[in-house]
């Protein structure tokens, strides 16, 4: 078999296709998007049918994947770290119901917030739910862990999380594929009430989850992903989790350190292996990509415990992703730097694409709202968040998917008028619709400006859930059809658009203005494809 050049994301996707996965469910989010995209783009390569369609949000994706597992099939749900907040309800409860067919949750964390609102560490969720977590260090491990994860999931009838971070998700390397497995045949759960979390049943199942914890620790101790390598220098021992292990070996120029080293790739933490470090070394250095979760567990209390070093005592920075230089510094190793960045170099932040419809939408909004005073525009997660930057300075909030509508509602309820929210079409169907229902029910005076580019733009143009049906959805939720307006955000319609937005700003009820123009990137791609056909 030939080696494949795959992104970490793609290695996981490919792993799923080869390991008998029957369905994959996801909502786009950097750095996780390419998992689903790989399956969609390589569909013909799959043996048999694999269901691979985007879901409306991470919660619906997780639940659909759980439903597929219920039938005995192997399934996968993929999301970025903050997406797991949206799916937290089914996630926590799936640990109690357990699964039937192998179930993998793939979460891509984004330390240093390259494309995110925070850098939360999904390993906490794994610990919270008390399920196994796998953390690959390279593309080959990512691929192999899918096979291993499905087996582990089916052995314990539990969901298993694969946690990756940006650098692995978006780094390409060679992967040697394995022989393809057949998909599972359908078979319903042997216990007919396994998935019925009535209190009596839930209590029983939760005790079962607690009982199995010891076995999960034993699995970790025997795991191929957790390796202890002894060393003669016991003045310090090193525990390296996930990608941190790579930077450790880089610091030693590819050689094994003379200190004892424990590489961690499977959780819960293997107590016996950790003991080989903490029990024999004078000092313990904990290297982990993300929050100091292992360090916290080792320290217990108080934080000043002298023996443990890591992110909590300043040996490594408390925030941000690791890199070879930070790790070399923590090991006390000198490293050479090239010349400093000359002062002439200016920052180059992302910006709207030339010709983007959001530019015209913001220009119309800014003129419409001029005179009302600042601080009245609530916004959301998407390309249009760039409206916060110069020269627009057009939005005042960006918190989480859907929060524009609900925060505008709360502010309107407090008397702020006008109270405007700017949200994209995909974000609206992800988490905006329920908030709009609240506003309609309470007759909150908000103006919802939906920047409808008919795609999920920021992540590269994935299918949006309700393209062409946004106004029907708003009417169905109960917005007065007289106050659902569609505008075309183009320079030549500017004056007309300003007038329409202005009228709706004055209205003391729920109004929706849909600024609809196809994403310029998607439009260019589409035209290219049409031309080549």
């Amino acid at each position, binding site marked *: 078999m030939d*080696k494949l*050049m795959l*992104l970490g994301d793609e290695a996981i996707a490919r792993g799923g296709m080869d390991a008998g996965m029957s369905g994959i469910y996801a909502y786009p989010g*950097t*750095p996780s*998007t*390419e998992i689903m995209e790989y399956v969609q783009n390589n569909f013909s390569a799959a043996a048999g049918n694999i269901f691979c369609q985007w879901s409306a949000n991470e919660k619906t994706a997780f639940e659909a994947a759980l439903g597929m597992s219920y039938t005995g099939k192997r399934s996968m749900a993929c999301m970025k770290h903050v997406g797991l907040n949206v799916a937290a309800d089914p996630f926590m409860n799936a640990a109690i119901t357990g699964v039937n067919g192998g179930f993998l949750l793939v979460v891509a964390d984004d330390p240093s917030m*390259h*494309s995110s609102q925070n850098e939360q560490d999904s390993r906490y969720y794994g610990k919270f739910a008390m399920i196994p977590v796998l953390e690959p*260090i*390279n593309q080959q491990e990512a691929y192999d862990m899918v096979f291993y994860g499905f087996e582990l999931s089916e052995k314990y009838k539990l969901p298993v999380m694969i946690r990756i971070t940006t*650098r*692995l998700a*978006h*780094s*390409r*390397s*060679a992967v040697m594929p394995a022989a393809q497995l057949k998909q599972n045949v359908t078979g319903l759960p042997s216990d007919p009430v396994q998935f019925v979390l009535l209190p009596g049943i839930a209590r029983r199942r939760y005790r079962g989850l607690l009982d199995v914890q010891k076995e999960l620790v034993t699995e970790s101790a025997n795991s191929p992903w957790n390796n202890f390598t002894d060393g003669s220098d016991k003045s310090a021992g090193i525990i390296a989790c996930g*990608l941190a*292990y*790579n*930077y450790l*070996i*880089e610091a030693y120029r*590819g050689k094994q350190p003379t200190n004892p080293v424990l590489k961690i790739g499977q959780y819960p933490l293997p107590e016996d292996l950790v003991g080989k470090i903490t029990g024999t070394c004078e000092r313990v250095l904990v290297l982990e990509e993300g929050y100091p979760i292992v360090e916290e567990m080792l320290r217990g209390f108080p934080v000043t415990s002298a023996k443990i070093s890591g992110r909590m005592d300043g040996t490594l920075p408390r925030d941000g992703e690791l*890199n*070879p*230089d930070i790790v*070399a510094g923590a090991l006390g190793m000198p*490293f*050479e*730097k*090239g*010349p*400093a*960045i*000359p002062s*002439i*170099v*200016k*920052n*180059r*932040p*992302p*910006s*709207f*694409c030339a010709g983007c419809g959001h530019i015209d939408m913001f220009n119309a909004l800014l003129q419409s709202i001029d005179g009302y005073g600042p601080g009245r525009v609530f916004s959301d997660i998407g*390309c249009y968040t*760039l409206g916060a930057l*110069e*020269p627009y300075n057009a939005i005042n909030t960006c918190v989480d998917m859907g929060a524009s509508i609900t925060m505008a509602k709360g502010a309107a309820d407090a008397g702020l008028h006008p109270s405007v929210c700017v949200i994209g079409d995909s974000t609206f169907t992800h988490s905006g619709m329920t908030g709009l229902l609240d506003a309609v029910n309470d007759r909150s005076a908000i103006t919802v400006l939906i920047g409808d580019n008919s795609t999920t733009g*920021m*992540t*590269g143009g994935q299918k949006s859930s309700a393209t062409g049906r946004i106004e029907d959805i708003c009417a169905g939720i109960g917005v007065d059809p007289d106050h659902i307006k569609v505008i075309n955000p183009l320079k030549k319609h500017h004056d007309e658009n300003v007038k329409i937005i202005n009228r709706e700003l004055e209205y003391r009820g729920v109004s929706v203005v849909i600024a609809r123009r196809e994403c310029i990137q998607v439009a260019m791609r589409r035209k290219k494809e049409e031309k080549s056909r």
Partner: protein
Amino acid sequence: MQTDIIIAGVGGQGILSIAACIGMAALKSNLHLKQSEVHGMSQRGGAVQSNMRISDRMILSDLIPQGSANLIMSVEPMEALRYLPWLSADGWIVTNTTPVKNIKDYPDISGIMTELRSVRNNVIIDADSIARRTGSLRTSNMVMLGAASPYTGIEYSLLEDAVRDIFKRKGEDVVELNLKALKAGKDYFNNKQ
């Protein structure tokens, strides 16, 4: 052998196609490869880079440590300077001269050129003009790759094979155009020596 390369540019300039060519050639040479990319928000006109590591032994870190890049290849002059801390003492900078001025405070281009010339090992090339002369401005990337090819540690003929493979889908004309651009870049380098 090990070659650490930073490919730099602005989101949308297509540095990933350069990376793909080098990657494919490295794979054909049976070398180990790590190619870290930037996806997501920065692709919208922000500063982007790709860390490429090629070696005859296993490489673990996806990221290049500071002070150890053998080559910074940039399709935009200011972006070349952004990664100087990663350049090794005997490393090379190969950069295009055409600025992308999508920010309000883009500095004076002569100041940028002064900084670039002060780097000990520099190749400054007007890849856009060369690409236009060989047939299409859109092959400027391949001119850059040709000019930087002696520093990649990869045999030139394998880069040609990679260009053929990668552009095959787009037809024989596109393949030829890109091969011509690659060679024009290589010739520029040779004449400079």
